[in-house]
């Protein structure tokens, strides 16, 4: 897979798909068991120093010193990259501006709300003018408002500094909103790479999702397969995803059909394909179903709490 300069690229996949592992390998933290990768022409495994100098990272778990202020954290990071004092001060005020963190830089990280802490981590990530910025689940554990805000900032970074941004996420909306291109991965393999729009169009038709009440899914499937306007059926327990031609007017048709055959539809909904539908199409289960996500969120929250001690 190739990631272009200046784009926002998303790695989308269920938990355990290998998003963070991919990220860690690209960031020189983990050694790959096979294969290779290059960032800005540098080999990730043979030219670590050069790679490290040209990237910035925001990790999935909070990785910021709680006892220091935001400014101190930024300054710490900058000196690790050998930034001289004047350059450092200039850059700090630049990134504070960009992420609207002015006025918060002298508060201990511990005393900042989670959204602001995260923003400081993002700010730190691009202190050193990286060519590529990695964001591993940047909005995990944030409330909706903080998440939206962070999205705006990520966009702004990409616009104003022109840096390539690679992010992993299991929030579909996030990938849809932010990414120029998305790779859907599962079990360590790339299922598909394309723009969110193309991905949505690739499964083509309108989508009807419905749920039946009693558990005779096999029989219901048989009823559905007889219809020529249904292109594709995917069933999970009692819920079905149909790709159809026609859209809304098919809803009453389906309800009647179910009635005639003695099935009860408990819910039905027709919509244009979303990135989530695409995801289900390629990965075969809804992202929310993978129980890992709650666990991970809890873990992140726990880590934040612990960091507060």
């Amino acid at each position: 897979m190739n990631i272009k300069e200046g784009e926002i690229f998303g790695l989308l996949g269920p938990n355990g798909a290998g998003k963070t592992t991919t990220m860690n390998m690209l960031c020189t933290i983990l050694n790959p068991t096979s294969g290779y990768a290059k960032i800005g022409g540098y080999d990730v495994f043979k030219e670590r120093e050069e790679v490290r100098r040209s990237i910035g990272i925001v990790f999935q778990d909070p990785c910021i010193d709680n006892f220091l202020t935001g400014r101190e954290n930024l300054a710490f990071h900058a000196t690790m990259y050998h930034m001289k004092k004047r350059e450092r001060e200039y850059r700090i005020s630049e990134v504070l501006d960009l992420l609207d963190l002015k006025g918060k830089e002298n508060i201990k990280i511990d005393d900042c709300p989670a959204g602001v802490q995260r923003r400081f981590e993002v700010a730190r990530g691009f202190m050193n003018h990286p060519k590529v910025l990695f964001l591993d689940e940047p909005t995990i554990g944030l409330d909706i408002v903080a998440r939206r805000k962070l999205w705006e900032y990520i966009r702004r970074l990409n616009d104003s500094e022109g840096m390539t941004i690679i992010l992993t996420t299991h929030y579909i909306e996030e990938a849809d909103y932010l990414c120029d291109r998305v790779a859907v991965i599962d079990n360590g393999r790339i299922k598909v790479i394309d723009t969110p729009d193309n991905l949505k169009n690739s499964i083509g038709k309108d989508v009807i999702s419905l749920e039946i009440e009693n558990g005779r899914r096999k029989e219901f499937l048989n009823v559905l397969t007889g219809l020529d306007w249904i292109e594709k059926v995917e069933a999970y327990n009692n819920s079905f995803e149909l790709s159809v031609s026609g859209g809304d007017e098919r809803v009453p048709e389906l309800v009647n059909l179910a009635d005639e055959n003695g099935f009860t539809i408990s819910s039905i909904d027709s919509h244009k394909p979303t990135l989530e539908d695409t995801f289900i199409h390629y990965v075969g289960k809804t992202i929310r179903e993978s129980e890992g996500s709650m666990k991970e969120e809890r873990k992140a929250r726990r880590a934040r709490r612990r960091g507060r001690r």
Partner: protein
Amino acid sequence: MGKIIDPLPMYTMWLRQMIRFFRMKARLVSSLVMPFLFLAFLGIPLSILPSGAMPGIPEDMNFLDYLAPGILGMTLLFSSMMAGASVLWDKEFGFLKEVLVTPVNRLSIMLGRSLGGMTTSIIQGFMIIGISVLMGVNISSVSGLLLSIVFMVLICATFIGFGLILATQLGEMEGFMSIINMIQMPIFFASPAFLPMEMMPHWLKSIICLNPFTYGIDGLRGSLVGYSTFPLIHDFVILLVTSIVLMLVGAYCFEKMEAN
């Protein structure tokens, strides 16, 4: 890159330790409580013993004078072990990853941290010396006080290295915290920090002689209150060799440590 020691990041690591140290005042105060209790409730009362009552303590020295360098050593031992192991805290809170993805080599990172830990330990050490003097301990001379800094540095280097080795081998904070007392306390008690070697049974004496901490205590005592069991140069050489070995092993372990 090729540069093995990278001064600016090292300074930054050091500075970070200092800021944290002075920001956590409660921790600083609580680290002084135990030494204070030892001096006040053991040192002062036992000083009423008639001179010569304890074998191994010279006739013209009271017990408080004898004990103070030992308690100073204890403070250094505990704080350096913790400083060495603080890498586990950073790992726990993820900060270690942030440091390890920067283009700074690990040796510089480790040295910067260690220098920070050393500085904070020695600051605590001077506070203990201050408390001791207030309680009436006689420091023999200014040059002795300066010489004691050398021994403080060596004690810190030795046990920061040791703490770092333990931390990297155990790999997690829970494990470290559960065994730290089991390791620290024997090191402390199997030394002449509390009581002179002359009072110990023979078998214990040989253990005490194998403990590098013994030579640190002896060196501190020699330089601060002018009495030591061994010649100071003897203490110095043994401690120097031990600290270099432990720091090297510690650096190697840190080099191999996983960030996750």
